[in-house]
């Protein structure tokens, strides 16, 4: 599987060619589903900055026989149109992404069957998956562009949304982002007959899938400018991630996608990818363990070192990583249903909401890197995510995931385990709580609830309990964090 495809234009040593390998070893459940010799053809990375590619045209049709080296498809990257060649002989069993559509780098775009008989099997595989364009993207990331208003860094500013919340609330999408519909008679638009929007605003709107007609422009003469589109996209996203969260949206919904009520809208590539992942997660036997942790000391420490650029996200990641050092089993995963994988590094993935989905930038070796560097690294990752420049290893190498909804006032929730990892921790808000102490007094302490979802094939109740106890100790006495 190592070289599913290549392009003539990319030097043979390009790391992009190795991506299919890392993906498949990372998420083996998918390949297990693929019986016999049906291979997926992935969207290749044609340049270092390419995050998604558009299918310009399929040179081959479904059912065509392919020889190694045949051009199969023309892909438009951010730079050029390039022919993508097959690395194997076989038959083009199914085209999963139609011409004109874009998918993230690494997403499957077609299935390649080794023999003609297997075409049927490949087709069956497609139809069995509920979406029209199944994309694997374990942690889907087609267009990482977190909006500044929701993903800026700081305590509680990690708009982490667990995969669960996104997928569970996709259905509520049609009811949201409607706020400003019809509310904007454009001053510069001849009574609203047309929209005056700057070139960049138009580009962004296309990217976010927003209808400019629903937007109120804040530019000169009521022109729609980039920040109007960004605000609308952010509003749409926040509401899309759950009606329960809608009340927490600070920014009034300045507009949003114009949605035809009562219509049926097919999943986008990202939504399909999320769906696929979520369904896949059902095959993993998970369980949950919760814990209440007092954060007074952590809050105090945060106040002290905040000025040095330390962020709460980095502190939580660091505390988690230090606890994982003592409980390596919680950092392991089960990839084939038969064995443990003891991960050599502690890589903390942190969920960040982006328009229409989420991405999980990864703080690699979080146990070894000091808190200050970790904070800087986090800032860099968020910036990159915003600029859509995260490299695959920066979002798909997590061994343990953190998801935080505390900033919305959520006190507890549970997360769905991302396939291929062992555990995910849902972090609630830290709130002043009345507690009784051992000496019989009553006191007010800041407490937060955490809830871990883990794969019971490799991580047992006692493991999580012990891990949480260690984590609580670290957070309640956080001096080790700054070592």
């Amino acid at each position: 599987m190592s070289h599913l495809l290549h392009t003539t234009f990319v030097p043979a040593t390009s790391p992009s060619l190795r991506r299919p390998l890392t993906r498949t070893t990372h998420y083996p459940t998918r390949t297990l589903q693929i019986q016999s010799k049906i291979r997926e053809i992935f969207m290749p990375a044609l340049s270092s900055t390419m995050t998604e590619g558009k299918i310009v045209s399929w040179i081959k049709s479904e059912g065509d026989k392919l020889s190694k080296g045949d051009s199969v498809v023309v892909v438009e990257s951010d730079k050029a149109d390039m022919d993508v060649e097959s690395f194997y002989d076989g038959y083009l069993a199914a085209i999963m992404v139609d011409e004109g559509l874009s998918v993230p780098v690494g997403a499957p775009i077609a299935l390649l069957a080794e023999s003609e008989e297997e075409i049927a099997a490949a087709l069956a595989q497609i139809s069995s998956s509920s979406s029209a364009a199944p994309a694997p993207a374990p942690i889907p990331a087609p267009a990482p562009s977190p909006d500044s208003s929701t993903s800026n860094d700081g305590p509680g500013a990690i708009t982490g949304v667990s995969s669960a919340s996104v997928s569970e609330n996709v259905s509520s999408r049609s009811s949201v982002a409607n706020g400003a519909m019809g509310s904007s008679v454009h001053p510069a638009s001849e009574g609203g007959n047309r929209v005056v929007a700057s070139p960049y605003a138009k580009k962004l709107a296309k990217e976010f899938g927003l209808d400019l007609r629903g937007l109120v422009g804040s530019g000169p003469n009521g022109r729609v400018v980039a920040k109007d589109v960004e605000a609308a996209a952010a509003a749409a996203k926040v509401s899309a991630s759950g009606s329960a969260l809608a009340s927490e949206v600070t920014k009034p919904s300045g507009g949003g996608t114009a949605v035809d009520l009562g219509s049926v809208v097919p999943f986008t590539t990202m939504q399909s990818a999320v769906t696929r992942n979520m369904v896949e997660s059902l095959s993993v036997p998970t369980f949950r363990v919760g814990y209440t942790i007092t954060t007074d000391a952590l809050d105090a420490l945060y106040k002290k070192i905040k000025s040095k650029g330390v962020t709460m996200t980095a502190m939580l990641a660091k505390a988690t990583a230090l606890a994982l050092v003592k409980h390596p089993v919680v950092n392991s995963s089960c990839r084939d249903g038969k064995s443990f994988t003891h991960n050599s590094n502690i890589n903390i993935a942190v969920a960040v909401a982006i328009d229409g989905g989420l991405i999980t930038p990864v703080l690699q070796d979080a146990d070894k890197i000091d808190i200050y560097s970790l904070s800087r690294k986090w800032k860099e990752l968020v910036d990159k995510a915003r600029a859509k420049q995260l490299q695959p290893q920066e979002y798909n190498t997590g061994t343990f995931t953190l998801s935080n909804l505390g900033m919305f006032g959520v006190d507890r929730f549970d997360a769905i385990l991302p396939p291929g990892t062992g555990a995910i921790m849902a972090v609630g808000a830290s709130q002043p709580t009345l507690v009784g102490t051992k000496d019989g007094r009553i006191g007010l302490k800041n407490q937060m609830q955490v809830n871990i979802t883990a794969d019971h094939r490799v991580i047992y109740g006692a493991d999580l309990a012990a891990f949480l106890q260690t984590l609580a100790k670290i957070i309640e006495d956080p001096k080790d964090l700054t070592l």
Partner: protein
Amino acid sequence: MSLSLSSPSPITRSDCTAVANAYLCTPRSLRFCGLRREVFESKSLNSLSVSTRLVPCPRDSSFKKVCAALQSNGTPYKGGFDYDLVIIGAGVGGHGAALHAVEKGLKTAILEGDVVGGTCVNRGCVPSKALLAASGRMRELQNEHHMKSFGLQVAAAGYDRQGVADHANNLASKIRSNLTNSMKALGVDILTGTGTILGPQKLKYGKGGSGDTIITAKDIIIATGSVPLVPKGIEVDGKSVITSDHALKLEFVPEWIAIVGSGYIGLEFSDVYTALGSEVTFIEALDQLMPGFDPEIGKLAQRVLINPRKIDYHTGVFASKITPAKDGKPVIIELIDAKTKEPKGTVEVDAALIATGRAPFTQGLGLENINVQTQRGFVPVDERMRVIDANGKLVPHLFCIGDANGKMMLAHAASAQGISVVEQVSGKDHVLNHLSIPAACFTHPEISMVGLTEPQAREKAEKEGFEVSITKTSFKANTKALAENEGEGLAKLIYRPDTGEILGVHIFGLHAADLIHEASNAIAMGTHIQDIKYAVHAHPTLSEVLDELFKSAKVKVNSSSPVVHPVAV
């Protein structure tokens, strides 16, 4: 000297370098030492060494003597004319002709009604290169990803508009004074005023009216250049609706600017404006952006220079009416379909730049006195730049070069045409091969080309019955380009596989404008691929992109030139 050398402008290539050298005495001998080695080599070396010693006091009399020994603006040798050669217009074309004329021993005068240097130096290639140099750096510094890939961290980059504008203005002044000095140093008479042709070999100049001076010349060259073309219906107010003349002053950076026309000028300005933070809307009458470029290069350029930037476009439309901003209203551009003329809506922007091309500046030349009719303003000429009159006959002793004849509206083409004319009037027939003249667009990265585009080559091949082959190399495979993190780029060679003749070369990539000359020189000299492919290129350099290109061509004949002087080491 270093300043003009580092400015990547076409005029720099052809003339300004020489201009800077002129300060040191003898640019022409340097330029031509390759061609006229037997005559000039020793002399130019001598004069250089002498002049180097004299640099502290360049106007020293001994300095002049050295110059004079080499070349001087001689006296007209016969016929009783005031001058051997009078050039109307001191732009780059006129300047190139004047310097070459002096070298040929002709008594030469140059007329200038405005400022020495013409469009290129004052309102064209030179100041635009200064803006592009500043904005190119700005773009680079803003590209955090690009910086990080070098391991560099840059705090928020910003710019001072006036500072950028001053750089452009200062560069133009410097190049202008270099140009003036170079002509003065050689003794070219610089006459001020507009020139009018009164009859054969006779013209007047001055501010117009009775104070004009009448002079005679054996030969006259018209080199009056061009002005920005403003289609009718467009009101240019110089503030919100502007031409390149105004834009180069960079008096303001609009949030949103419409650029009418997506040729060289429009494209370069889009590069400047987007780097400085503007959003751009192109309005192009043809169906695709960047007409005139090789389609493949245009496609790639669009991917890199248009699509990822804050630019959108309307193609296949004319701007039928443009109203400048006033009373708080934006600039309003009315669009009509280029073919059906139906209204295609309006665009409201903060500013509009008219970059629809350039119109020849030939009014007031007195062409009617010699029965010459302009065609769309252009002076009709033959392949030797000789002016053709209304009856289709050649006008003796009258030539027209540069934008005014419209053959190839490029500064260095004008200069080359001027030199060609001087060769003819000094007794040597010369026809300029326009297919060997390179062109460049100084976007980031740059685009350059010489010879035919692929469709042109294929059309010619079909007509003349030969085969055309194409080969391409990518900057991605070039070490130097990768070291610069600028692997984006393509070089394309169009050639005849049967003879190895180079028909065209097109480059899009880092420093493409500087790379094209290996190809343009090969075309000019008639060098074939099977010979040039053995030439050695330093490693690692960008020029290896062309090396690869020539080596990848499959020519059916073997090397034609024998080893002339093998040198054993």
